[in-house]
């Protein structure tokens, strides 16, 4: 049975799209058939993160009634399939979110996991993305506004009968000004399933249009997302340690004949 998982946050800019894109690639590397759908039609970024911008048919066209969903599925990095939202604002007014439901019905038939990147907020498009899923991953940063919005999203999702898998804390920092993991768990009443540290590598990877789990699989963020992916499907994941020895020390050891 196909799992439909929405990644939602409430607040914008918490890294929801980055996590969705990388999680999709991570799940695909475990051999799952994964479709990542960018439901954020107003602020589409998924295609930029995955380096897939400029596709001719997008979700925009599907929701406008100008194209079929099958034509908007593209092969992405690591074998993940992607339905980009389309960056153009043209035709945004023509969009009918009602069409999302029928599009999803078709997508579900052709995949193991459908990951939906929900728009921020609780407007109709966001609610449609949440309501479409059976399961949800809540993304938040350890800051008060983010937690507050995540709380609203969680309660609405509960009401819509969506099973919340847990919270992913993104951009975690060693700073006492932020909420602790246990505080977040207490407030949201949802377990924390992953903690992703603040990582400059994320923006670097985005600039290259490459998912971080592909570009830098040794980074802490990649390891955290791979672990999250493994947990979701009950796989084992062995974190990839960064190269322990620097070039110079390797060279010295090589010269000394040690290994």
């Amino acid at each position, binding site marked *: 049975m196909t799992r439909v998982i929405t990644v939602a946050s409430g607040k914008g800019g918490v890294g929801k799209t980055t996590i969705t894109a990388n999680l999709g690639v991570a799940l695909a590397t475990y051999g799952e058939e994964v479709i990542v759908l960018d439901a954020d039609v107003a602020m589409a970024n998924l295609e930029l993160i995955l380096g897939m911008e400029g596709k001719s048919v997008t979700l925009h066209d599907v929701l406008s009634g100008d194209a079929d969903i099958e034509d908007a599925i593209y092969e992405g990095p690591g074998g993940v399939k992607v339905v980009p939202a389309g960056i153009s604002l043209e035709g945004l007014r023509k969009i009918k979110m009602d069409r999302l439901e029928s599009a999803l019905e078709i997508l579900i038939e052709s995949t193991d996991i459908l990951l939906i990147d929900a728009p921020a907020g609780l407007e109709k498009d966001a*609610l449609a993305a949440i309501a479409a899923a059976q399961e949800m991953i809540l993304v938040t940063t350890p800051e*008060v506004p983010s937690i*507050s919005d995540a709380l609203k999203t969680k309660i609405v999702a509960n009401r819509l009968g969506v099973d919340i898998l847990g919270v992913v804390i993104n951009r975690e920092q060693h700073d006492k000004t932020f909420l602790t*993991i246990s*505080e977040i768990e207490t407030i949201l009443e949802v377990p924390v399933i992953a*903690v992703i540290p603040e*990582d400059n590598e994320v923006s670097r990877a985005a600039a290259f249009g490459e998912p971080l789990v592909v570009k830098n699989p040794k980074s802490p963020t990649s390891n955290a997302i791979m672990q999250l992916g493994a947990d979701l499907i009950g796989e084992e994941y062995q974190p990839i340690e960064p190269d322990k*020895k620097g070039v110079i020390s390797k060279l010295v050891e090589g010269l000394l004949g040690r290994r």
Partner: protein
Amino acid sequence: MEMPITKPSMVSYADELDFSKLMKDLAKDHKNGFIRVTSRSEEGYILYKDGKQVAASYDRFSKIEALEKINSALGNKNTLIEVFDAGPSQVDYLLDLNKPYTIDEDSNVYDVIGELKKTATETPEKPPEKELKPEVTESSKVESTDNLSEADNLSEDSVSVEKVTEPPVADEKIDLSLKEDSSSNEPIKEPEKDENVGSSQASVDVDESIERAPVEKAVESSVADRLEKSLNEPLKEPEKGVGVESSPASVEMGGDDLPSAEKVAEPPVVDKKVEPSLNKTELEVESSETPKADEIEEKPVDRSELLKKYGIKDVQDGDVENLLQSYKGGIIDDDDVERVELVLMNLIKKSVLGIPKIKGTEVMVFLDNYKELTGTINIIIEYESQGFLNRIMGQNRTAVNLRRQIINIAEIAIKKSFRQYPEVVEKFEINVEFS
């Protein structure tokens, strides 16, 4: 700190590098440059000139605090250490550039640096704690850095040089290091001492110390030794004054403790004298710091307290219902469609007929309740006939105004009918015709 990141001359992870040896080598060779320490998302720098540390930063900390943080970070096996070489003039420039981080050579910071260097390698490796809970790691380190009975009371700053130079706090630390030693050998004596003191807080702390794992004790003892060493010099002066203040009770306690302490750690004579007076000072420190400690340690578990603390508003059922109502697009039951059509029709008709010069009107309302509520309203107006001249001059304009007025009336009627979802008005198409 602002540093020119080029190619490092050496790169290593904390668990693979003897940091004290590195520092010694840098000092021995009178090297110039800087060390970058990267632990998770935090970065720290130690700028050294002629082999001596001249500036330090770590995350948002500077100087000695930064060194302490770097020291803590070195406990993490994944901490990356990079050494960058620089010329003496370059270091001068960097020093000038990073003035706020410059370590004052007059202070005893250098001693502390030396000790910190040692701890980096001497401190036995703690079992790597889950990366998911970095704060736990940090707090546990704070605990190990602070001494046993103080652990709950002192924040990270407790190791700072400022506090170290203050006699009461410094005394307390030495005393605690002794307590710790004695507790490891003669655990039964500790509660006695606390009874004398009469401080429940202290007794709780000691109990905890007794129960601690041997590894933790080893960490603490090495830290205690380190502090002891670094504090020896600045303590010589306050020692006298403190000794005079010692109360009978505290002397008693000192008597209990000293033999065991001597056996284990063989503390210098200075420490023995200092110790008895500490209990009094300790009490003061503890009593004054307890509320603070409560704030740090007793994390509010209660959700409502947390929400209050962070000013987060809990979401009410009614709010969610309203939100979802709007999501549903104000969909009404199919049975209600006809009723709503009728109500809307009558409402619009009544309002339109209120406009002067309108002889009659016919209003038709068609609602579409499929998935989302939409509608079409057709309004046919019978308008009072005008004179010939009026027809030529201004009927067209009057008709436009009238059409606008009727559309407004219809929109108001829709909004009135759907108070919970006024946006539904945008889903209606309103047509006005003149007969």
